[in-house]
């Protein structure tokens, strides 16, 4: 390994590289001609830089191979070279529609390694932001998916409501995306005055908006024709493929980590898990839409019962001291210096910390070796695993259904390629 010369190119001609995509096994007995069609990586309907090598017989898909890696940025490798608190901003950029979830999985894993208690107020603030993020992610999904199916106005409506959420993120953290709001031990800052009023405004209006979306889409004949009984995959197949999240729940399996293994005080809130019946595209759509309403309920309860107290752990070994202490306390100054230069050290150990992201089980695996930098960070990203279900979903369907199915699969390529 050490003697590998990374600067040398092996000079494999492009054609030869492509030969590894063996397609002879799909040869159809009745027709001797199959068409290989390359979709993407630059195509608006692939929702990112996804390339699909499809084998068509007429307009029917007989085989499909997702080819990924175009967005691979080596974030897991980068994380190994940064102290724990500096990993948060890079790790947020993996699944770029679920940045609070990436940060939550990472911070949760580090807190488990440290055996660090998170104050209740921080846990509630995390829940509020996680659920806002879930709605925001579903808004982007709904807008772009409806756009794929020809409902263009949905795109504007969804992005209008997404703006409201981004405004809330901007209030609490100063950033609209990749906010770096979650810290190890709590959150970066307390919410500003006026945040709660604006949040209430949002939670009041959002359920009515979901009703409007339902009115627009649920009785839309084109929408129904393209979703109902399309790409139905049963629960067993999905479980075998490791699929989680709304895709699994659409088949009627109510697996949701917020209920099954509550983290960050999710057990304090009352909410339901929407499930589907047959597991077709329509169920996937309805599950996500219903999840938005449940997320709003969680936010309302968390805002109502938001406890007073610290928003980040009082343990100065892991959280920065308040700014005003630096002027008066020598100890605070030392802690501050240690934290921003070396960072905190984490005892050796390995932890796998799963949470429920908008797309399924998002887990962070960290191996700590006792130093102030992680020895290994791995994100089990739901998009990466769920993408394997694309083939059983679209096999023997028309190519137009592929576009609808891919939209309902909701892959985020930043999360797939990491």
């Amino acid at each position: 390994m050490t003697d590998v010369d990374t600067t040398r190119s092996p000079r494999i001609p492009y054609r030869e590289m492509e030969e590894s995509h063996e397609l002879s096994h799909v040869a159809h007995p009745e027709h001797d001609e199959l068409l290989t069609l390359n979709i993407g990586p630059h195509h608006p309907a692939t929702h990112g830089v996804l390339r699909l090598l499809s084998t068509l017989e007429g307009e029917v898909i007989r085989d499909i191979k997702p080819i990924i890696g175009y967005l691979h940025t080596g974030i897991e490798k980068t994380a190994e070279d940064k102290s724990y608190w500096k990993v948060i901003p890079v790790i947020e950029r993996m699944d770029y529609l679920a940045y609070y979830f990436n940060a939550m999985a990472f911070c949760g894993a580090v807190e488990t390694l440290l055996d660090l208690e998170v104050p209740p107020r921080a846990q509630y603030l995390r829940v509020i932001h996680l659920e806002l993020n879930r709605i925001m992610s579903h808004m982007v999904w709904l807008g772009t998916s409806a756009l794929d199916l020809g409902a263009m106005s949905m795109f504007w409506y969804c992005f209008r409501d997404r703006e409201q959420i981004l405004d809330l993120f901007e209030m609490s953290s100063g950033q609209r995306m990749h906010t770096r709001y979650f810290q190890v031990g709590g959150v970066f800052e307390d919410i500003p005055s006026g945040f709660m009023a604006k949040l209430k405004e949002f939670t009041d209006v959002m359920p009515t908006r979901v009703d409007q979306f339902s009115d627009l889409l649920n009785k839309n004949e084109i929408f129904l024709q393209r979703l109902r009984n399309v790409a139905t995959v049963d629960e067993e197949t999905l479980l075998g493929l490791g699929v989680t999240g709304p895709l699994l729940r659409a088949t009627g399996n109510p697996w949701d980590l917020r209920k099954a293994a509550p983290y960050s005080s999710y057990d304090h809130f009352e909410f339901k898990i929407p499930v589907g019946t047959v597991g077709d595209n329509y169920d996937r759509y309805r599950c996500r839409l219903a999840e938005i309403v449940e997320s709003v309920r969680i936010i309302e309860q968390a805002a109502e019962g938001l406890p007073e107290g610290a928003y980040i752990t009082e343990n100065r070994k892991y959280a920065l001291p308040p700014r005003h202490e630096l002027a008066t306390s020598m100890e605070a100054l030392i802690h501050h210096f240690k934290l921003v230069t070396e960072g905190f050290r984490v005892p050796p150990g390995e932890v796998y910390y799963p949470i429920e992201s908008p797309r399924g089980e998002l887990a962070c695996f960290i191996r700590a070796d006792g130093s102030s930098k992680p020895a290994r960070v791995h994100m089990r990203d739901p998009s990466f695993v769920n993408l394997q279900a694309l083939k059983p979903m679209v096999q023997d369907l028309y190519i137009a259904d592929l576009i609808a199915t891919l939209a309902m699969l909701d892959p985020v390529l930043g999360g797939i390629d990491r």
Partner: protein
Amino acid sequence: MPDATGLELIAQELRDRDEDGVLDTVFFRERAAVLVSPASVPATLEALRAKGYGFLASVHGVDYFPEEPRLGVHYELIDMTKVDRIAVRTRVPVNEPTVPSVTAEWPTANHQEREVFDMFGVIFEGHPDLRRILMPEDYEGHPQRRDFPIGGEPILFTHNEGDVPGWWE
């Protein structure tokens, strides 16, 4: 999670089936893991599936450099009825990094084993399509290994295009 005693009971059951299979048990922060030999990974996963751990959540690689054997492969299992998790871990040396593939029994392992192969160079014997998945197909080396340098890839600018050999081919 099984508690520390529960983990030992599971490990004992696994030992009864295959005496040399289970090498160690780890119970850390309420999380249970069994360390098994590479050859007994498929049998262990099957035995745990029979006990109810029917969902393979994740397969990921670790490099334990400088400890030996260096490379690790972790399997995270879930019991969805009892809401329980257990991890199966195995370690292989760099000069002989082979682990039997579990893709046939657990289809979800397909992409994830490819990623471990891509990033760590662990060879999964019996995998139907063991190719690189995230890195380019003509890439050399396994970038997630601990001795793979960060910044080892030359970044091409106009000022250094003469120093980067063969980039134009």
